[in-house]
């Protein structure tokens, strides 16, 4: 089974702090994604990555950056956390593979509160 893990389930940070959210997948997937999930807004894509050291902006990249130094790990960085970044953050990975399913596998999420 594909496993996507995230470093923390709950995180509380102060305004202005630099925040790192880590995501690791164990299935050698090429694609990895970071979303934020807010009530009534669904999932919005922040950044995604096709391969090591590759990154692409999603729909809401402002205030965030990412790092992918190894294939299995994709980090989301909040350079200077603000209260409007309080949210649930979901990581996902996928690989077309031979089946071409494109299914995204999700981590358990990190609920970040910025005070």
């Amino acid at each position, binding site marked *: 089974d594909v496993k996507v893990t995230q470093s923390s389930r709950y995180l509380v940070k102060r305004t202005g702090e630099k925040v790192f959210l880590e995501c690791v997948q164990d299935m050698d997937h090429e*694609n990895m*994604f970071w*979303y934020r999930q807010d009530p*009534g*807004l*669904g*999932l*919005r*894509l922040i950044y*995604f990555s*096709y391969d090591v050291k590759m990154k*692409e902006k*999603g729909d809401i990249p402002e205030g965030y950056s990412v790092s992918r130094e190894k294939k299995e790990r994709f980090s989301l960085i909040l350079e200077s956390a603000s209260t409007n970044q309080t949210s649930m953050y*979901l990581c996902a990975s*996928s690989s*077309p593979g031979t089946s071409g*399913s*494109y*299914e*995204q596998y*999700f*981590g*358990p*999420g990190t609920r970040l509160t910025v005070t």
Partner: protein
Amino acid sequence: AQTVTQSQPEMSVQEAETVTLSCTYDTSENNYYLFWYKQPPSRQMILVIRQEAYKQQNATENRFSVNFQKAAKSFSLKISDSQLGDTAMYFCAFMTENTGNQFYFGTGTSLTVIP
């Protein structure tokens, strides 16, 4: 631009009854994939069912089936014999290879199964 609309923020159904969740999407692409994901309370998001646009036959997975109307750009999910464990947020998602495997999610439908 690709958009996905779920017009039912909340729904409820009696245990053992059938319920249908609606989803519409907008795209100019001809080849794409559609998904329904389930997010139980405080649990991980998992794939329920997927449909390839080039397939005319509606996908089914046990009690879950879809009604895919390509011309109408509609992709509804039918849950038969509803069970308490079906209580969850359900997200409709759209993907096309031309946008780099990026998923576009709807805003979700919160389904409650009533005993």
